């Protein structure tokens, strides 16, 4: 499973990270990420699984081959 940080989240998870642990759901992965990267707790972001965007406070199933993107708000212009 691959986790890709975007925008400001790259300050916390600095690059694409592969996880060998098989997380069954987004909440499992999220709990692990929050523990591993405590800085995430202060950030707001959406989560995209492959190409579909979900809200980070909603749970859904994950599979081993999923690409999980963490998308914070962008406001620069």
């Amino acid at each position, binding site marked *: 499973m691959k986790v890709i940080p975007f925008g400001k989240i790259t300050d916390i998870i600095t690059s694409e990270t592969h996880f060998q642990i098989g997380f069954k759901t987004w909440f499992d992965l999220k709990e692990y990420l929050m523990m591993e990267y405590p800085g995430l707790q202060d*950030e*707001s972001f959406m989560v995209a699984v492959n*190409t579909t*965007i979900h809200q980070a406070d909603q749970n859904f199933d994950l599979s081993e081959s999923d690409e999980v993107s963490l998308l*914070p*708000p*962008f*406001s*620069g*212009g």
Partner: protein
Amino acid sequence: MNRYQRHIQLDDFGAESQKKLAATRILVIGAGGLGCPVLMQLAAMGVGCLGIVDGDQVELTNLHRQMLYNEKHIGLPKAEVAGEVIKSMNAEVKVEVFSVFIHEKNIFSIIEDFDIIVDGTDQIFTRYLINDACLAAKKPWVYGAVYQYEGQVSVFNVSAEENRNYRDLFPEPDKNLGAVSCNVAGVFGLVPNLIGLLMANEVVKWIVGSEGLLSGKLLHYHVKNNRQHIFNIQKNENNNVAPDKKTVENTDYIRLCRPDSLKRTNDWFKKLTENPNAVLVDVREKGEEPSLNNIPHKHIPMSVLEENQKSFDRFDEIIFVCLSGSRSLQAVLWAKNNLPEKSVYHVEGGVFEIIEYYQNV
């Protein structure tokens, strides 16, 4: 030879599409990093009318990315300069200049006469304001935003059926300072230009009705690795906002997007008198009136905050002030990132609140 001959030669574009461009009125809010390339490209391609909204002046730090401006323009109103340059690029394009900042009270009268709106602003509150006003006024709008080496684009509220919008991504403003502007985070010069051109591309696609419009999709581009993603935006169940004009006009968007922790400090006087390591910092530029003469403070203009970071070493509590509370808020955001160990506040009422207070004690 027709000026747009090379467009007309394109089989799937042709004279018909060129006519559509010439018949369309486009409003660009913010003539900065994103607004410049949008304006330049659409002007060159021969759209009917470009509205330009910006209340800011050209600054030296704009020039590494905002290519409508040159060194002679520093200090001049952006919207007016942009209008002049655009007219000299293509006299066939009608230009309407609004040298104001957009806010909830003026947005409806400004967007009213335009067919499509482009958001080239750099603040989170203007994105919610433009989103809600465009929903209420039933206008499509093109969203673009950048962060350092990355940027994103989407087209919102295309029709009553295709009405995905910014609140489907983030239903409510981030209260944790998640979205910071270029003034705070920095931006690589070509990123807003690249993203701005992609925004102009969406405007043209919308006008001529071609396929591949980013409606319901969020395009993301990273210049370091050239990776591009296109995400599908789902209808967000938490997005129950169906704004009408009156509600938008009566919402204070700046306050809506202000982080809870930065709420007005009305006990700044108490902090300053009780804590010897507290300091009042005026972040206005040199020569701005009224001055804070006779009131203990430090004067560190916003433009040199970064290089004067060391001046804050001996303080643990910093209270920023400016004329109206907006630059001081920017200063707080900067300090949250750069001086995380300090307690930072700002005086929402600006220098007048301070002067009035001292007059009454």
